[in-house]
């Protein structure tokens, strides 16, 4: 589904990603871990099409398309979903409205009929159960005055409604208490399917107890320095990221 080939990306002239290679197949869950500043979020943003990041080298093939040539909105319409690390507050735009507009824009692009208000509300209701979200949050402005947990749940709700092919969760677990984390993880797990791939970007191993990945990659200083199965995450948890630093130096030397 997704093939990242030797991606280099920089922001304001500073290189953050220094040659990332990654292959993700449908049905797989990949976790990308790494210390602060290793480039995890940059990778997520680059895949979603944030223009501030300049891709200087490499390519990304997504379902046989050159992903980097697509606009952010077309990437979303092609089935890519980024759950933001820091979901944006948009005063004056109702949560429901945003979701309905987004869903219909995506459907239109894919030649499907747009949903009317009734159909949409029925769909929304069923998806809300997934993330145990309160009805009142729907009528409020997007993320405005939401708690940290509510914002993250809202991201998962959006994902549930938009039904992406490839979901990228950027530190969706950060700042969540254990109850919220369970709700978010269970929402994600319910969305796992054979034709959907999920990339979980996280700083902490904790989330991976709830969303069990097929593969774990460790990002350090703009490169994937180690890949493995879920045991790698445990090893990281135990030894910390400093252990990697030594590994990395070993590799370099």
């Amino acid at each position: 589904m997704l093939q990242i080939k030797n991606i280099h990306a920089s922001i304001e002239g500073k290189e953050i990603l220094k040659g990332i290679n990654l292959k993700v197949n449908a049905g797989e869950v990949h976790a990308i871990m790494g210390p602060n500043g290793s480039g995890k979020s940059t990778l997520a943003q680059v895949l979603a099409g944030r223009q501030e990041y300049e891709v200087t080298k490499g390519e990304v093939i997504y379902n046989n398309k050159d992903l980097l040539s697509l606009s952010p909105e077309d990437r979303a319409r092609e089935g890519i979903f980024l759950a933001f690390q820091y979901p944006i507050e948009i005063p004056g735009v109702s949560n429901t409205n945003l979701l309905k507009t987004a869903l219909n824009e995506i459907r239109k692009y894919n030649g499907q009929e747009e949903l009317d208000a009734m159909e949409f509300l029925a769909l929304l209701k069923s998806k809300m159960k997934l993330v145990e979200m309160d009805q009142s949050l729907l009528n409020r402005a997007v993320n405005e005055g939401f708690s940290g947990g509510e914002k993250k749940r809202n991201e998962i709700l959006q994902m549930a409604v938009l039904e992406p092919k490839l979901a990228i969760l950027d530190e969706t677990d950060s700042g969540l208490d254990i109850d919220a984390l369970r709700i978010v993880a269970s929402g994600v797990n319910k969305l796992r399917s054979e034709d959907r791939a999920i990339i979980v970007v996280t700083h902490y191993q904790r989330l991976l107890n709830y969303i069990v990945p097929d593969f774990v990659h460790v990002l350090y200083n703009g490169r994937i320095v180690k890949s493995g199965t879920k045991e790698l995450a445990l090893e990281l948890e135990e030894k910390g990221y400093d252990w990697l630093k030594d590994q990395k130096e070993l590799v370099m030397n």
Partner: protein
Amino acid sequence: MGHDVDIRDWYISRFKDFENSLNGESLKPIHMLRKEAIEGFAKLNFPTTRDEEWRFTNISPILRFNFKPSLKIKKITKSTVEKFLFKELNCHLLVFINGHFAKEFSRTNNLPKGVVAGNINREISNGSELVGRHLGKYANHKEQIFTALSTAFTKDGAFIYVPDDKIIEEPIHILFITDTNGEQLLTQPRNLYIAGKNSQVTILEHYASVNEGLYFTNVVTEVVAGENSIVDHIKLQEESVKSFHISRTEIDQERSSNFASHSISLGGEITRNDFNSRFNGQGGECTLNGLYLLNGNQLYDTHTMIDHANPYCNSHEHYKGILDGQSRGVFNGKIMVRRDAQKTNAFQENNNIILSSDALVNTKPQLEIFADDVKCSHGATIGQLDADSMFYLKARGIGEEKARTILIHAFASDVVRTVKIEALRNYFEKILNDRFNK
């Protein structure tokens, strides 16, 4: 400078024509006021950008034309008038064409007993005591040349009187239509609204033009909000982009009165909107909100002054601008909290979104606080559509144009959603859609 003098002389010489057109009316006491005003006008100078109050608003384009004071009504068809009405809105209606009352299009049935909603010319002719008592008492013509010009040519405008304890449920829609037919006209509506003790009224002041003519509207409006009255005011300006519009609204607020104004404007070539409110008793509440949508070479200037002369009064001010092209916005919000005005709450905010690289905003809060137990705040922002929000919407599959429209709507919604009349909120939404949802 020489040209300013010429244009002043031009208006002075037009005053003679005006006097002649008045016939017997020039014998009424109000004519003394007119004459005093024209004498004052002759001594005043048109403001330049050297005047602090006009620093960013160069009115010299207005002085380039010899606008002819509109002395008579123009015939227009019913269907032309209907174009400017709001179908979903049940209201009383006063229609003015080129500044003159058009009785045949107006409709003021079912008003509570004692309420007057009509034209001020009729009141003047009848020797109304209320007009004598209030006209020109709040908008002083001695210092402001445009007010002097208005006062000198006082002829017609809207007059609303709501006696004590009367409540008018339906809004009064005052429609000022300008149809120049190629003439460079000066129309000068002179409005007076008086709300008695415990009364309530909603007034929509609506300026529109039949065609994209070049003309000059110079409005002076005086509002008396009596004790414990509620006056809800909406000003909608959707005129020719070539027109000039200078407007001054003076509000006299008595004890515990509540005045709210929403000024929604699509601008003209040059627009200047002054809103000045004064709390004459304690416990008053004043809301001044506004939204301006500018494009091309338009210049739009809002000057407000809220005079907290008494304690326990609240004022809220929120003006928002969306500017495109080479348009320019000016906002100057003055709040005066006098020494005795303890427990004042005064909040002011001016936010602007600039959609092009050439648009410009000058914004200036001006708080003068002489009391010590008060809460006052002000804020001003000038920026572009938020890039993070744009990306967030796009990352959800929403395209550039639509994302822009959504964010502009969201920006404007603070002001639009506080308009109490649903039909107008819908109309303002439509204005936003027409402009940004292409």
